[in-house]
């Protein structure tokens, strides 16, 4: 007699919940304690920041914030003083950007002249290639992981 879904669920639930805890390998505890001992042997500045003494964490945070503020203020001052030479360099970048823009526009115009048939054909070829790679991957997976039925004892 085939059980219904609820009976199956109850039976599997009973079987799985009755399982005791698996014993951890004997090597687990020594491994963890060895890593902890190695970390404790490091000087404080080589440990993760979150494990530093609290006073050091607060003072290092304050120092970083002060450094960040100083860099922002200094950068603003430098940018004001160096504005003329920077604008000269920026104009070189602007002309490069214009050249790239012109190339892109030419590419788009050329693409539009290809014709609908060519565009559809290129799109179809791309989709077929993608599907082919998916199919090859699925075939490989099934061949590699299929259970062997010919060697059952």
């Amino acid at each position, binding site marked *: *007699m*085939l*059980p219904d*879904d609820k009976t*199956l*669920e109850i*039976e*599997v*639930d*009973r*079987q*799985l*919940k*009755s*399982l*005791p*805890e*698996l*014993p*951890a*390998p004997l*090597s*687990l*505890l020594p*491994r*963890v*304690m060895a*890593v*902890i*001992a190695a970390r*404790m042997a490091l000087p404080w500045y080589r440990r*993760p920041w*979150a*494990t530093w003494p609290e006073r050091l964490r607060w003072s290092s945070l304050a120092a970083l914030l002060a450094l960040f503020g100083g860099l922002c203020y200094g950068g603003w001052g430098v940018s004001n003083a160096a504005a003329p030479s920077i604008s000269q360099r920026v104009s070189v970048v602007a002309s490069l950007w214009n050249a790239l823009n012109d190339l892109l526009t030419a590419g788009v115009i050329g693409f539009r002249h290809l014709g609908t048939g060519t565009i559809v054909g290129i799109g179809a070829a791309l989709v077929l290639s993608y599907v082919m790679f*998916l199919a090859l*991957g*699925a075939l*490989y*997976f*099934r061949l590699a*992981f299929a259970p062997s039925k010919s060697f059952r004892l």
Partner: protein
Amino acid sequence: MTDAEQFETFMREYQNMVFSTAMRLVANQSEAEDISQEVFLKAYERFADLRNSPTVAGWLKTVATNMSLNHLSRYRARWSFFSELATPGEEGEHLEVDFPEPRDLQADVANADRHSVVERALQKLPPAQRVPLVLFHLENLRYEEIAAKLNVSLGKVKTDIFRGRQALQKMLRSQLADELNPAS
């Protein structure tokens, strides 16, 4: 008692639980041991908060579960995608299962090592079935929570759990028959 000694005592109390959680999800002893090590190293970083917390067991289980799932998704993302392309019914072998009433099954396993049989059968399940099955029955997550954790659809979770139950029962029947009748 030093911090290290206290943590060692703490670890002895919970290492079996953490290892069991990882082992039943990844079904590989060395990977489960690596994950368990990472869980306890994380616990050590927060030991000051955890040592007297009433919810430490739940925290350890949650971290072990999440680390195991991350491990599985990191190394098996491609294979789980391709496994979804398999035709229905292949992963769970035969769908029709004829097994006896629970009362008869319990009578049959009286002389067998039932727990190890169930563990072996669970580990033999493909990850796509084993993981949601363990999350549902052992971690007591709801279907929606499992779908969110595994980033799959609700329908797929229900289907995989159903197939996992069927495959588990079929394997248990087959393994118990082999153990009770070794000559055949």
